[in-house]
Protein backbone atom coordinates (compact mmCIF):
# COMPACT_ATOMS: atom_id res chain seq x y z
CA UNK A 1 0.00 0.00 0.00
CA UNK A 2 1.35 3.41 -0.91
CA UNK A 3 2.04 5.87 1.84
CA UNK A 4 -0.46 8.30 0.37
CA UNK A 5 -3.16 5.69 0.59
CA UNK A 6 -2.05 4.92 4.11
CA UNK A 7 -2.48 8.55 4.94
CA UNK A 8 -5.97 8.66 3.45
CA UNK A 9 -6.94 5.49 5.29
CA UNK A 10 -5.90 7.01 8.60
CA UNK A 11 -7.89 10.17 7.99
CA UNK A 12 -10.98 8.29 6.92
CA UNK A 13 -10.68 5.89 9.80
CA UNK A 14 -11.21 8.80 12.17
CA UNK A 15 -14.20 9.88 10.09
CA UNK A 16 -15.59 6.37 10.23
CA UNK A 17 -15.57 6.34 14.01
CA UNK A 18 -17.14 9.77 14.16
CA UNK A 19 -19.82 9.01 11.58
CA UNK A 20 -20.68 5.67 13.15
CA UNK A 21 -21.05 7.33 16.52
CA UNK A 22 -23.28 9.97 14.95
CA UNK A 23 -25.39 7.40 13.12
CA UNK A 24 -25.80 5.29 16.22
CA UNK A 25 -26.84 8.28 18.26
CA UNK A 26 -29.26 9.29 15.55
CA UNK A 27 -30.75 5.80 15.48
CA UNK A 28 -31.10 5.80 19.26
CA UNK A 29 -32.84 9.18 19.21
CA UNK A 30 -35.16 8.15 16.39
CA UNK A 31 -36.03 5.06 18.37
CA UNK A 32 -36.65 7.17 21.50
CA UNK A 33 -38.77 9.54 19.48
CA UNK A 34 -40.82 6.65 18.18
CA UNK A 35 -41.25 5.24 21.68
CA UNK A 36 -42.30 8.66 22.92
CA UNK A 37 -44.77 8.97 20.07
CA UNK A 38 -46.30 5.61 20.89
CA UNK A 39 -46.53 6.34 24.59
CA UNK A 40 -48.04 9.75 23.90
CA UNK A 41 -50.61 8.22 21.60
CA UNK A 42 -51.43 5.80 24.39
CA UNK A 43 -51.93 8.69 26.80
CA UNK A 44 -54.31 10.30 24.32
CA UNK A 45 -56.20 7.04 23.86
CA UNK A 46 -56.34 6.62 27.60
CA UNK A 47 -57.81 10.09 28.09
CA UNK A 48 -60.43 9.44 25.44
CA UNK A 49 -61.22 6.10 27.01
CA UNK A 50 -61.64 7.42 30.54
CA UNK A 51 -63.65 10.40 29.36
CA UNK A 52 -66.08 8.42 27.24
CA UNK A 53 -66.55 5.20 29.14
CA UNK A 54 -70.15 5.48 30.12
CA UNK A 55 -70.04 5.19 33.85
CA UNK A 56 -73.55 6.23 34.77
CA UNK A 57 -72.75 6.23 38.48
CA UNK A 58 -70.19 8.98 38.06
CA UNK A 59 -72.47 11.91 37.87
CA UNK A 60 -69.81 14.49 38.53
CA UNK A 61 -68.04 15.41 35.36
CA UNK A 62 -65.31 17.42 37.10
CA UNK A 63 -64.49 14.31 38.99
CA UNK A 64 -64.11 12.35 35.80
CA UNK A 65 -61.91 15.04 34.29
CA UNK A 66 -59.69 14.94 37.33
CA UNK A 67 -59.50 11.17 37.25
CA UNK A 68 -58.63 11.10 33.58
CA UNK A 69 -56.00 13.80 34.01
CA UNK A 70 -54.49 12.03 36.98
CA UNK A 71 -54.10 8.83 34.98
CA UNK A 72 -52.66 10.85 32.11
CA UNK A 73 -50.16 12.58 34.38
CA UNK A 74 -48.98 9.22 35.62
CA UNK A 75 -48.13 8.04 32.11
CA UNK A 76 -46.69 11.42 31.13
CA UNK A 77 -44.14 11.00 33.90
CA UNK A 78 -42.84 7.90 32.15
CA UNK A 79 -42.42 9.90 28.98
CA UNK A 80 -40.64 12.65 30.86
CA UNK A 81 -38.14 10.08 32.04
CA UNK A 82 -37.43 9.22 28.41
CA UNK A 83 -36.89 12.91 27.71
CA UNK A 84 -34.36 13.06 30.52
CA UNK A 85 -32.41 10.35 28.66
CA UNK A 86 -32.81 12.19 25.36
CA UNK A 87 -31.55 15.33 27.07
CA UNK A 88 -28.37 13.56 28.10
CA UNK A 89 -27.73 12.65 24.46
CA UNK A 90 -28.24 16.13 23.11
CA UNK A 91 -26.17 18.34 25.37
CA UNK A 92 -24.46 21.47 24.04
CA UNK A 93 -24.48 21.94 20.29
CA UNK A 94 -25.85 18.46 19.76
CA UNK A 95 -29.47 19.47 20.33
CA UNK A 96 -29.79 21.28 17.06
CA UNK A 97 -27.98 18.53 15.23
CA UNK A 98 -30.63 16.01 16.22
CA UNK A 99 -33.58 18.36 16.58
CA UNK A 100 -35.37 16.93 13.57
CA UNK A 101 -35.05 13.42 14.96
CA UNK A 102 -36.40 14.41 18.37
CA UNK A 103 -39.18 16.59 17.01
CA UNK A 104 -41.88 14.03 16.00
CA UNK A 105 -42.01 12.46 19.45
CA UNK A 106 -41.82 15.82 21.14
CA UNK A 107 -44.80 17.16 19.20
CA UNK A 108 -46.85 14.10 20.00
CA UNK A 109 -45.89 14.52 23.66
CA UNK A 110 -46.99 18.16 23.58
CA UNK A 111 -50.29 17.01 22.11
CA UNK A 112 -50.80 14.55 24.99
CA UNK A 113 -49.59 16.99 27.62
CA UNK A 114 -51.78 19.82 26.38
CA UNK A 115 -54.80 17.50 26.25
CA UNK A 116 -54.22 16.51 29.88
CA UNK A 117 -53.70 20.16 30.78
CA UNK A 118 -56.94 21.09 29.06
CA UNK A 119 -58.90 18.47 30.99
CA UNK A 120 -57.40 19.75 34.25
CA UNK A 121 -57.71 23.47 33.70
CA UNK A 122 -59.79 24.09 30.58
CA UNK A 123 -56.88 26.18 29.30
CA UNK A 124 -54.21 26.08 26.66
CA UNK A 125 -50.85 25.14 28.10
CA UNK A 126 -48.26 27.89 27.80
CA UNK A 127 -44.83 27.70 26.23
CA UNK A 128 -43.16 28.06 29.62
CA UNK A 129 -45.31 25.33 31.11
CA UNK A 130 -44.27 22.91 28.36
CA UNK A 131 -40.60 23.86 28.79
CA UNK A 132 -41.04 23.45 32.54
CA UNK A 133 -42.33 19.89 32.04
CA UNK A 134 -39.06 19.09 30.26
CA UNK A 135 -36.91 20.03 33.23
CA UNK A 136 -35.00 17.85 35.66
CA UNK A 137 -35.20 17.91 39.44
CA UNK A 138 -32.41 20.44 39.69
CA UNK A 139 -34.30 22.78 37.39
CA UNK A 140 -32.12 22.08 34.35
CA UNK A 141 -33.86 22.04 30.96
CA UNK A 142 -33.28 18.82 29.07
CA UNK A 143 -33.09 20.85 25.87
CA UNK A 144 -34.54 24.09 24.50
CA UNK A 145 -38.15 23.95 23.34
CA UNK A 146 -38.62 25.30 19.81
CA UNK A 147 -41.59 27.50 19.04
CA UNK A 148 -42.31 25.29 16.07
CA UNK A 149 -42.63 22.10 18.11
CA UNK A 150 -44.75 23.95 20.66
CA UNK A 151 -47.18 25.31 18.07
CA UNK A 152 -47.38 22.18 15.94
CA UNK A 153 -48.03 20.04 19.02
CA UNK A 154 -50.85 22.37 20.07
CA UNK A 155 -52.26 22.39 16.57
CA UNK A 156 -52.73 18.63 16.75
CA UNK A 157 -54.54 19.07 20.05
CA UNK A 158 -57.50 20.56 18.20
CA UNK A 159 -58.03 17.28 16.34
CA UNK A 160 -58.16 15.36 19.61
CA UNK A 161 -60.54 17.89 21.10
CA UNK A 162 -62.79 17.40 18.11
CA UNK A 163 -62.88 13.63 18.71
CA UNK A 164 -63.46 14.27 22.39
CA UNK A 165 -66.34 16.67 21.75
CA UNK A 166 -68.08 14.37 19.27
CA UNK A 167 -67.75 11.30 21.49
CA UNK A 168 -68.92 13.24 24.51
CA UNK A 169 -72.25 14.08 22.96
CA UNK A 170 -73.61 10.65 23.75
CA UNK A 171 -72.88 11.18 27.42
CA UNK A 172 -74.32 12.95 30.39
CA UNK A 173 -73.19 16.55 30.25
CA UNK A 174 -71.58 16.01 26.87
CA UNK A 175 -73.84 18.49 25.19
CA UNK A 176 -72.51 21.30 27.36
CA UNK A 177 -68.99 20.10 26.88
CA UNK A 178 -69.25 20.26 23.09
CA UNK A 179 -70.07 23.96 23.38
CA UNK A 180 -67.12 24.66 25.63
CA UNK A 181 -64.74 22.81 23.34
CA UNK A 182 -66.18 24.63 20.36
CA UNK A 183 -65.33 28.03 21.80
CA UNK A 184 -61.92 26.82 22.89
CA UNK A 185 -60.95 25.43 19.49
CA UNK A 186 -62.27 28.52 17.75
CA UNK A 187 -59.95 30.64 19.87
CA UNK A 188 -57.06 28.30 19.14
CA UNK A 189 -57.63 28.76 15.45
CA UNK A 190 -57.59 32.55 15.79
CA UNK A 191 -54.50 32.48 17.98
CA UNK A 192 -52.53 30.22 15.68
CA UNK A 193 -53.44 32.21 12.57
CA UNK A 194 -50.94 34.97 13.28
CA UNK A 195 -48.08 32.49 13.59
CA UNK A 196 -48.78 30.76 10.28
CA UNK A 197 -46.51 33.00 8.17
CA UNK A 198 -43.57 31.57 10.11
CA UNK A 199 -44.24 27.87 9.63
CA UNK A 200 -45.33 26.11 6.48
CA UNK A 201 -46.30 23.03 8.44
CA UNK A 202 -48.57 25.12 10.65
CA UNK A 203 -50.37 26.48 7.60
CA UNK A 204 -51.21 22.95 6.57
CA UNK A 205 -52.33 22.08 10.08
CA UNK A 206 -54.51 25.17 10.28
CA UNK A 207 -56.70 23.76 7.57
CA UNK A 208 -57.03 20.53 9.57
CA UNK A 209 -57.95 22.67 12.58
CA UNK A 210 -60.55 24.48 10.48
CA UNK A 211 -62.19 21.27 9.47
CA UNK A 212 -62.12 19.93 13.05
CA UNK A 213 -63.71 23.16 14.18
CA UNK A 214 -66.44 22.84 11.59
CA UNK A 215 -67.21 19.35 12.81
CA UNK A 216 -67.53 20.55 16.38
CA UNK A 217 -69.68 23.46 15.25
CA UNK A 218 -71.98 21.08 13.41
CA UNK A 219 -72.31 18.96 16.52
CA UNK A 220 -73.01 21.99 18.72
CA UNK A 221 -75.55 23.12 16.16
CA UNK A 222 -77.39 19.78 16.21
CA UNK A 223 -77.65 20.03 19.97
CA UNK A 224 -78.82 23.64 19.93
CA UNK A 225 -81.47 22.91 17.33
CA UNK A 226 -82.98 20.08 19.34
CA UNK A 227 -82.75 21.92 22.63
CA UNK A 228 -84.53 24.91 21.08
CA UNK A 229 -87.28 22.71 19.70
CA UNK A 230 -88.10 20.92 22.94
CA UNK A 231 -87.15 23.77 25.20
CA UNK A 232 -85.93 21.54 28.00
CA UNK A 233 -82.86 22.42 30.10
CA UNK A 234 -79.86 20.28 29.14
CA UNK A 235 -79.50 18.55 32.53
CA UNK A 236 -83.04 17.32 32.30
CA UNK A 237 -82.49 16.07 28.77
CA UNK A 238 -79.79 13.75 30.02
CA UNK A 239 -82.09 12.23 32.57
CA UNK A 240 -84.88 11.77 30.08
CA UNK A 241 -82.62 9.91 27.72
CA UNK A 242 -81.09 7.70 30.36
CA UNK A 243 -84.54 6.75 31.53
CA UNK A 244 -85.69 6.03 28.00
CA UNK A 245 -82.67 3.89 27.10
CA UNK A 246 -82.63 1.87 30.29
CA UNK A 247 -86.39 1.36 30.52
Amino acid at each position, binding site marked *: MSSSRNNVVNVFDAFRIDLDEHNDRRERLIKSSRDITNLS*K*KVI*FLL*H*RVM*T*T*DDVSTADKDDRNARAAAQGREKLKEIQKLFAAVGAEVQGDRFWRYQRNVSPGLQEYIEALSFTHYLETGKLISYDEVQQSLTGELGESYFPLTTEDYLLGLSDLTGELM*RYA*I*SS*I*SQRGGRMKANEVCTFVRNCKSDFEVFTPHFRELRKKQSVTSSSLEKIED*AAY*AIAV*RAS*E*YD*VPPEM*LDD*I*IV*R*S*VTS
Partner: protein
Amino acid sequence: MDAENVERINQLLDQDVELREKIKDQVTEFDKKTRTMTGLLNRIHSTPPDALPALLDSVRPTLESCRDVTAAIAALVPPNQFWRWKEMWSNSLRSAVFTAALIHYLQTGGLLGLSETSEILGIQAEWQDRFTLAIEDYLHGLITLVNELSRLAVNSVTLGNFEQPIKISVFVKDIFAGFSMLNLKNDTLRRRYDSLKYDIKKIEEVVYDVSLRKLAPSSKVDVAGAV
Protein backbone atom coordinates in the same frame (compact mmCIF):
# COMPACT_ATOMS: atom_id res chain seq x y z
CA MET B 1 -27.20 -20.37 -18.58
CA ASP B 2 -28.21 -23.70 -19.96
CA ALA B 3 -31.43 -24.16 -21.90
CA GLU B 4 -33.11 -26.17 -19.16
CA ASN B 5 -32.45 -23.47 -16.64
CA VAL B 6 -33.85 -20.81 -18.95
CA GLU B 7 -36.89 -22.95 -19.56
CA ARG B 8 -37.53 -23.33 -15.86
CA ILE B 9 -37.09 -19.65 -15.14
CA ASN B 10 -39.41 -18.71 -17.98
CA GLN B 11 -42.01 -21.07 -16.67
CA LEU B 12 -41.89 -19.51 -13.23
CA LEU B 13 -42.16 -16.03 -14.67
CA ASP B 14 -45.22 -16.97 -16.70
CA GLN B 15 -46.98 -18.78 -13.84
CA ASP B 16 -47.57 -15.60 -11.86
CA VAL B 17 -49.38 -13.89 -14.70
CA GLU B 18 -51.66 -16.83 -15.19
CA LEU B 19 -52.34 -17.22 -11.48
CA ARG B 20 -53.29 -13.56 -11.13
CA GLU B 21 -55.73 -14.03 -13.99
CA LYS B 22 -57.37 -17.01 -12.31
CA ILE B 23 -57.65 -15.39 -8.92
CA LYS B 24 -59.16 -12.34 -10.60
CA ASP B 25 -61.91 -14.49 -12.07
CA GLN B 26 -62.79 -15.78 -8.64
CA VAL B 27 -62.75 -12.31 -7.18
CA THR B 28 -65.14 -11.13 -9.90
CA GLU B 29 -67.44 -13.97 -8.83
CA PHE B 30 -67.04 -13.07 -5.15
CA ASP B 31 -67.77 -9.47 -5.97
CA LYS B 32 -70.99 -10.36 -7.74
CA LYS B 33 -72.19 -12.30 -4.73
CA THR B 34 -71.49 -9.52 -2.26
CA ARG B 35 -73.12 -7.02 -4.59
CA THR B 36 -76.25 -9.16 -4.74
CA MET B 37 -76.35 -9.49 -0.94
CA THR B 38 -75.81 -5.80 -0.38
CA GLY B 39 -78.59 -5.07 -2.83
CA LEU B 40 -81.01 -7.33 -1.01
CA LEU B 41 -80.02 -6.15 2.46
CA ASN B 42 -80.58 -2.57 1.38
CA ARG B 43 -84.27 -3.38 1.82
CA ILE B 44 -83.99 -3.65 5.60
CA HIS B 45 -84.49 0.11 5.69
CA SER B 46 -88.04 -0.21 4.46
CA THR B 47 -88.98 -3.63 5.76
CA PRO B 48 -91.25 -3.81 8.83
CA PRO B 49 -90.02 -6.08 11.68
CA ASP B 50 -92.34 -8.98 10.87
CA ALA B 51 -91.18 -9.21 7.27
CA LEU B 52 -87.51 -9.13 8.24
CA PRO B 53 -86.92 -12.87 8.78
CA ALA B 54 -88.12 -13.63 5.26
CA LEU B 55 -85.78 -10.99 3.84
CA LEU B 56 -82.80 -12.38 5.75
CA ASP B 57 -83.67 -15.89 4.60
CA SER B 58 -83.53 -14.72 1.00
CA VAL B 59 -79.92 -13.58 1.48
CA ARG B 60 -78.65 -16.72 3.20
CA PRO B 61 -78.21 -18.95 0.12
CA THR B 62 -75.90 -16.40 -1.51
CA LEU B 63 -73.95 -15.99 1.73
CA GLU B 64 -73.50 -19.72 1.96
CA SER B 65 -72.38 -19.91 -1.65
CA CYS B 66 -69.43 -17.66 -0.75
CA ARG B 67 -67.82 -20.83 0.58
CA ASP B 68 -67.36 -21.98 -2.99
CA VAL B 69 -65.36 -18.86 -3.77
CA THR B 70 -63.19 -18.98 -0.68
CA ALA B 71 -62.49 -22.65 -1.37
CA ALA B 72 -61.65 -21.89 -5.01
CA ILE B 73 -59.24 -19.12 -4.04
CA ALA B 74 -57.64 -21.23 -1.33
CA ALA B 75 -57.10 -23.94 -3.94
CA LEU B 76 -55.45 -21.45 -6.32
CA VAL B 77 -53.07 -19.68 -3.97
CA PRO B 78 -49.76 -21.56 -3.78
CA PRO B 79 -48.63 -22.61 -0.32
CA ASN B 80 -47.29 -19.73 1.74
CA GLN B 81 -48.38 -17.00 -0.60
CA PHE B 82 -51.39 -15.62 1.30
CA TRP B 83 -49.76 -12.25 1.86
CA ARG B 84 -48.72 -11.95 -1.72
CA TRP B 85 -52.23 -12.01 -3.14
CA LYS B 86 -54.62 -11.01 -0.39
CA GLU B 87 -55.06 -7.42 -1.56
CA MET B 88 -56.94 -8.79 -4.56
CA TRP B 89 -59.95 -10.04 -2.62
CA SER B 90 -59.91 -8.09 0.61
CA ASN B 91 -62.64 -5.68 -0.50
CA SER B 92 -65.00 -8.52 -1.32
CA LEU B 93 -64.13 -10.34 1.86
CA ARG B 94 -64.89 -7.26 3.95
CA SER B 95 -68.29 -6.98 2.31
CA ALA B 96 -68.98 -10.62 3.09
CA VAL B 97 -68.00 -10.07 6.73
CA PHE B 98 -70.35 -7.11 6.86
CA THR B 99 -73.20 -9.16 5.43
CA ALA B 100 -72.73 -12.04 7.83
CA ALA B 101 -72.47 -9.71 10.83
CA LEU B 102 -75.52 -7.69 9.81
CA ILE B 103 -77.69 -10.79 9.43
CA HIS B 104 -76.43 -12.06 12.75
CA TYR B 105 -77.20 -8.80 14.52
CA LEU B 106 -80.69 -8.58 13.05
CA GLN B 107 -81.45 -12.12 14.16
CA THR B 108 -79.81 -12.25 17.56
CA GLY B 109 -78.98 -8.66 18.50
CA GLY B 110 -75.43 -9.85 19.18
CA LEU B 111 -71.97 -9.51 17.62
CA LEU B 112 -70.66 -12.21 15.29
CA GLY B 113 -67.13 -13.15 16.40
CA LEU B 114 -64.10 -13.54 14.15
CA SER B 115 -64.01 -17.32 14.23
CA GLU B 116 -67.75 -17.64 13.69
CA THR B 117 -67.44 -15.37 10.67
CA SER B 118 -64.64 -17.52 9.31
CA GLU B 119 -66.83 -20.55 9.77
CA ILE B 120 -69.82 -19.02 7.99
CA LEU B 121 -67.58 -18.16 5.05
CA GLY B 122 -66.24 -21.71 5.04
CA ILE B 123 -62.66 -20.60 5.70
CA GLN B 124 -60.73 -23.57 7.03
CA ALA B 125 -57.98 -23.53 9.57
CA GLU B 126 -55.67 -25.61 7.40
CA TRP B 127 -55.71 -22.97 4.65
CA GLN B 128 -53.79 -20.76 7.07
CA ASP B 129 -50.98 -20.03 4.62
CA ARG B 130 -53.22 -19.49 1.60
CA PHE B 131 -56.51 -18.00 2.70
CA THR B 132 -57.51 -16.74 6.09
CA LEU B 133 -59.66 -13.99 7.54
CA ALA B 134 -57.18 -11.34 8.67
CA ILE B 135 -58.19 -9.34 11.73
CA GLU B 136 -58.04 -6.10 9.84
CA ASP B 137 -60.53 -7.36 7.27
CA TYR B 138 -62.89 -8.49 10.03
CA LEU B 139 -62.67 -5.07 11.67
CA HIS B 140 -63.34 -3.28 8.39
CA GLY B 141 -66.48 -5.37 8.06
CA LEU B 142 -67.63 -4.32 11.52
CA ILE B 143 -67.15 -0.65 10.74
CA THR B 144 -69.32 -1.02 7.65
CA LEU B 145 -71.89 -2.67 9.91
CA VAL B 146 -71.97 0.36 12.20
CA ASN B 147 -72.29 2.70 9.20
CA GLU B 148 -75.33 0.76 8.08
CA LEU B 149 -76.90 0.58 11.53
CA SER B 150 -76.82 4.35 11.94
CA ARG B 151 -78.93 4.54 8.79
CA LEU B 152 -81.20 1.81 10.10
CA ALA B 153 -81.77 3.74 13.33
CA VAL B 154 -83.22 6.63 11.34
CA ASN B 155 -85.38 4.50 9.08
CA SER B 156 -86.70 2.33 11.89
CA VAL B 157 -88.32 5.39 13.39
CA THR B 158 -89.91 6.24 10.06
CA LEU B 159 -91.34 2.72 10.01
CA GLY B 160 -92.67 3.23 13.53
CA ASN B 161 -90.18 0.97 15.25
CA PHE B 162 -88.97 3.02 18.21
CA GLU B 163 -87.15 0.20 19.98
CA GLN B 164 -84.61 -0.50 17.25
CA PRO B 165 -82.65 2.78 17.63
CA ILE B 166 -82.21 2.12 21.31
CA LYS B 167 -81.02 -1.43 20.71
CA ILE B 168 -78.68 -0.19 18.03
CA SER B 169 -77.37 2.51 20.34
CA VAL B 170 -76.39 -0.03 22.99
CA PHE B 171 -74.89 -2.46 20.47
CA VAL B 172 -72.87 0.16 18.63
CA LYS B 173 -71.50 1.75 21.78
CA ASP B 174 -70.26 -1.64 22.78
CA ILE B 175 -68.44 -2.11 19.49
CA PHE B 176 -67.03 1.39 19.76
CA ALA B 177 -65.71 0.66 23.23
CA GLY B 178 -64.03 -2.43 21.82
CA PHE B 179 -62.38 -0.47 19.06
CA SER B 180 -61.20 2.17 21.48
CA MET B 181 -59.22 -0.49 23.34
CA LEU B 182 -57.23 -1.35 20.19
CA ASN B 183 -53.89 0.22 19.43
CA LEU B 184 -54.61 1.11 15.85
CA LYS B 185 -51.93 2.61 13.62
CA ASN B 186 -52.53 5.64 11.47
CA ASP B 187 -53.97 3.71 8.57
CA THR B 188 -57.31 3.29 6.82
CA LEU B 189 -58.66 1.35 9.74
CA ARG B 190 -57.85 4.18 12.13
CA ARG B 191 -59.47 6.73 9.85
CA ARG B 192 -62.59 4.64 9.48
CA TYR B 193 -62.68 4.07 13.23
CA ASP B 194 -62.57 7.84 13.73
CA SER B 195 -65.57 8.16 11.47
CA LEU B 196 -67.59 5.85 13.73
CA LYS B 197 -68.07 8.78 16.07
CA TYR B 198 -70.36 10.41 13.54
CA ASP B 199 -72.49 7.32 13.28
CA ILE B 200 -72.78 7.20 17.02
CA LYS B 201 -73.67 10.86 17.14
CA LYS B 202 -76.40 10.32 14.54
CA ILE B 203 -77.81 7.35 16.44
CA GLU B 204 -77.70 9.41 19.59
CA GLU B 205 -79.74 12.14 17.98
CA VAL B 206 -82.37 9.61 17.02
CA VAL B 207 -82.46 8.20 20.54
CA TYR B 208 -82.75 11.74 21.80
CA ASP B 209 -85.68 12.55 19.52
CA VAL B 210 -87.43 9.31 20.32
CA SER B 211 -86.94 9.65 24.07
CA LEU B 212 -88.33 13.14 24.12
CA ARG B 213 -91.30 12.18 21.97
CA LYS B 214 -92.05 9.04 23.97
CA LEU B 215 -91.81 10.90 27.27
CA ALA B 216 -94.92 11.70 29.19
CA PRO B 217 -98.00 11.85 26.93
CA SER B 218 -98.71 15.30 28.30
CA SER B 219 -95.43 16.86 27.27
CA LYS B 220 -95.75 15.10 23.93
CA VAL B 221 -98.88 17.10 23.29
CA ASP B 222 -96.99 20.29 23.98
CA VAL B 223 -94.40 19.51 21.40
CA ALA B 224 -96.77 17.98 18.91
CA GLY B 225 -99.15 20.87 19.43
CA ALA B 226 -96.47 23.29 18.38
CA VAL B 227 -96.12 21.61 15.01
